[in-house]
């Protein structure tokens, strides 16, 4: 019981550390999780780690939280999952709240405003970069290109608050039905 209690808090502090030292989100966290949990603490093995990444990537939500919840649960059930999740989120929450407190005043300085005008242009390139990364992981079939074109066109020209949600659900339905049709053909 005592050992278990310690494990929960160890999970919390480990994931706090991971949250504090990763820049760039969920994917950047994976090497750190591997170092802390597979190599140092040996709480999970390589296979479990690979399984964790696959699940974190293929389920909705924040990848960092998915990973923390999954590993935490595997090691110390519900409370493990909860404490790992709180741990990974807490550094961001504290740092960002402090920044948000001062950011508007900071932007009122003309030089800073000029810098952020430049930064906004730079960030667009980072978003483009993320788009290309996702493109690399996406299937390259005719159907996939059709879906890309559809999502691009509709997003540009249709102004509807729930468009993205509808498109994602549509993508799921198309993904499942196209595979089912393919299976049926293969059986014939």
């Amino acid at each position: 019981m005592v050992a278990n209690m310690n494990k929960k808090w160890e999970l919390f502090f480990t994931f706090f550390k991971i949250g504090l030292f990763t820049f760039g989100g969920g994917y950047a966290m994976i090497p750190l999780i591997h170092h802390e949990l597979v190599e140092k603490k040996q709480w999970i093995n390589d296979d479990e780690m690979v399984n964790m990444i696959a699940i974190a990537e293929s389920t909705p939500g924040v990848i960092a939280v998915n990973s923390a919840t999954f590993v935490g649960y595997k090691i110390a059930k519900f409370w493990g999952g909860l404490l790992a999740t709180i741990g990974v989120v807490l550094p961001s929450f504290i740092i960002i709240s402090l920044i948000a407190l001062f950011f508007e005043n900071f932007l009122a300085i003309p030089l800073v405003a000029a810098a952020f005008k430049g930064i906004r242009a730079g960030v667009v390139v980072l978003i483009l970069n993320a788009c290309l990364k996702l493109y690399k992981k996406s299937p390259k079939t005719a159907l996939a290109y059709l879906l890309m074109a559809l999502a691009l066109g509709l997003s540009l020209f249709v102004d509807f608050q729930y468009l993205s949600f509808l498109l994602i659900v549509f993508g799921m339905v198309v993904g499942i039905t196209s595979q089912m049709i393919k299976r049926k053909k293969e059986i014939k």
Partner: protein
Amino acid sequence: MIYVELFFVFFLIGLFTIGGGYAMIPLIEDQVVSRGWLTYEKMLNFFAIAESTPGPFAVNTATLVGFEQGGWLGAFVATLGVILPSFIIILIIAKFIQNFMKYEKFQWALQGVKPIVVGMIAAVVVNLVFKNIFGGLFAFSYFDYIALSIMVIIVVLRWRFKKLNPIYLIIISGLLGMLAYTFFPI
């Protein structure tokens, strides 16, 4: 009630973000910009902060928007909203599903979602390029050649030095902006 709305909106965003933090940008644009919680300028400022501070991008963005709309409590409910879907879904999978990856329907659905997300983010990029350079999509209210130049420089740097941390790209574009917009106001 702003807190309930913040929670609900970010819960929805968390639930539909598939493929990592940047995949939530189209959802943010749909839900948060359209509610008037963010302008496009602010959205990009926030992304720059989210990218250059530690922690998950989605959590950083939720905390920023939440804090601006409703202070500490707003930040708390928005962050809670964005992480709760992940937490619940993963808990269910970890508890009840022994071998998740053998459920191929999830994989099939994902194969359909991936191209959709690519298309949606591509639309965000097109939109933002026009907004930054011309002031709007297909509206030519001005021509910001500095923004265009910075984008070109950052594109070249990004593809020339693939290992370079994005934070440096943000710092470089900030320095370029600081110099250029101060000496050549548009």
